[in-house]
């Protein structure tokens, strides 16, 4: 009963100083918006990294041929060690912990279908590439062993290429495309994966059997012949990563007759670990941003406290009068607490609306990845009510403790 009237009193006095109330609220609006937007972007970035990790595959090692000349006195000086398909097969054969060893050769080329054409990445792959990188076929089928061996003129294409050439991706399977004038039958359509960590489109690709690519399509230039720059190795268990990495070096050294004390012909990197480090860095960065946003909310709260102190001073006579006609100190305190909580809550709700609007409108515009953090939204609104009480308490108590006569005499 009295609470309702206190709320009414608080609301009407806020209305009376509408401009000031709005400016004070602005501080809270900005603070809340900052918190929510920062959290949304942070969560979005986090989710993106997770998607990239998922797209990349798990427990991955990257084997790269190092550019140092190896062999020393034994080999020809300056002879860069090459990795071959045999090396790839040997790795898989000799290290049972390797689930898949994918490798590919790449080139950029024009793909033509009827009047449509599209410049894309052509990859000559071995079959393990698909499993190591979690590629899935959404229509059609994958390459057969026979096709792999015989350099068959077949392709599996990514969603982007399919859409660009055929308009409707699902039409791709069964059509014949041309790459460097060579007719190639599309036998499969890959399931979309989106962007990788550098922002390039993973689905903008045409995959051919390794042999087809090397011998028929991009192998026209002999320097591509059977020359592998990297192998992606998928290990069965995260705990075997380091051990397998060392073992890979050993196997390659043996096969290339490189002595133990000589520089390794390959570099082995833990891709999964690198991605995790990235994810952690992005987590730290988002926490930092959220922290800065939190500070701006705190500043908003101090603004509320400041304005409440001004209000209490300005309305000293009114407070004296209310005390004289029978208001209890708690009534006065509650009235001012309600005012500051209302200021904060109105600010919080407007800030909430503003940030959601900003995220919905500006998000796609700037290509922000974002996740609307419902729990953070609820938490920040509740937190603002607490700020309202916290920062409103001191001014409210100051008002409640005024002496009625001195307050009435206040000029």
């Amino acid at each position: 009963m009295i609470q309702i009237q206190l709320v009414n009193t608080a609301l009407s006095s806020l209305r009376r100083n509408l401009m000031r109330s709005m400016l004070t609220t602005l501080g809270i609006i900005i603070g809340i918006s900052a918190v929510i937007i920062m959290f949304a972007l942070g969560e979005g970035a986090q989710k993106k990294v997770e998607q990239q990790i998922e797209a990349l595959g798990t427990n991955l090692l990257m084997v790269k041929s190092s550019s140092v000349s190896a062999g020393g006195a034994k080999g020809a000086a300056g002879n860069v060690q090459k990795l071959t398909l045999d090396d790839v097969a040997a790795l898989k054969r000799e290290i049972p912990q390797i689930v898949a060893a994918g490798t590919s050769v790449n080139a950029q080329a024009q793909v033509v279908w009827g009047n449509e054409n599209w410049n894309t990445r052509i990859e000559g792959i071995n079959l393990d590439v698909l499993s190591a990188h979690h590629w899935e076929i959404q229509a059609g089928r994958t390459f057969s062993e026979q096709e792999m061996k015989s350099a068959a003129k077949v392709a599996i294409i990514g969603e982007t290429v399919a859409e660009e050439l055929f308009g409707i991706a699902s039409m791709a399977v069964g059509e014949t495309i041309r790459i460097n004038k060579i007719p190639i039958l599309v036998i499969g359509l890959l399931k979309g994966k989106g962007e990788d960590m550098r922002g390039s489109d993973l689905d903008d690709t045409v995959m051919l059997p390794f042999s087809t690519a090397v011998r028929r399509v991009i192998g026209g230039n002999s320097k591509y012949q059977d020359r592998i720059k990297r192998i992606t190795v998928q290990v069965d268990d995260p705990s075997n990563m380091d051990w397998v990495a060392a073992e890979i070096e050993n196997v390659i050294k043996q096969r290339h007759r490189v002595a133990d004390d000589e520089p390794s012909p390959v570099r082995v990197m833990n891709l999964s670990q690198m991605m995790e480090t990235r994810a952690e860095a992005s987590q730290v960065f988002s926490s930092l941003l959220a922290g800065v946003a939190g500070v701006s909310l705190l500043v908003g709260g101090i603004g509320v406290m400041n304005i409440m102190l001004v209000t209490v001073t300005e309305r000293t006579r009114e407070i004296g009068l209310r005390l004289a006609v029978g208001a209890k100190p708690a009534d006065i305190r509650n009235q001012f607490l309600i005012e500051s909580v209302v200021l904060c809550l109105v600010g919080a709700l407007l800030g909430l609306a503003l940030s959601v609007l900003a995220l919905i409108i500006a998000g796609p515009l700037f290509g922000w990845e974002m996740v609307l953090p419902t729990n953070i939204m609820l938490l920040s609104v509740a937190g603002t009510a607490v700020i309202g009480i916290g920062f409103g308490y001191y001014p409210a108590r100051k008002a409640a403790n005024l002496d009625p006569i001195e307050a009435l005499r206040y000029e």
Partner: protein
Amino acid sequence: MSIALSCHDLSHSFPMAGGSLTVLDNINLEIETGEMLAIMGPSGSGKSTLMNLLGCLMTPVKGRLTVLGQQTAGMSREQLAELRSQHIGFVFQQFNLLARTSAQDNVQMPLMYNPDPTRDDEQQARHCLEMVGLGDRAGHTPNQLSGGQQQRVAIARALVNQPKILLADEPTGALDTKTGKEIMVLFKELNRSGITVILVTHEPEIAAYADRTIMVRDGKVESAT
């Protein structure tokens, strides 16, 4: 006749730089229920201080005050607020109305601190405005009212909790003579209806409306009639 207010050896002093200023010195006073009392005295003699003590807006440095049979010594701020709310109405020289607030809302304001779900607050405030002759001005804000009308609104506000005691500190001090007399007629009527009225004034013409006048001088109270 019962006693509305009584003080026993009531003293009050204000702390000053280097000692304290004694304003009231062992006052003994009894005010009967239904009485209309005027307090006179030179400026600075302590009339307002006495009034504020009687209205429980201040606590005396020494002595006892009894309001409608209740000892006020040892009461908490909350208890004193409740006592004021239920039994005492105040009228100030400067009206002290809430600016930009309608007469109706000004009068109704004290009711919110004395909640009673069975009461119709709006009706009661309206009734009090009618009692002071401003039934048709309920929607007016203070700056739309004359000084006399503003003081009437203030009186209606003092009456809204149906107090037994009405305290008025120089209620006509900010008004012209004619308007002041109209206000006094109103106080007289209220007093006739059974409310104990105590008013501070330095004008003998105003004091003449009272049944009894006391003088405050040098911290002491002496009877003037």
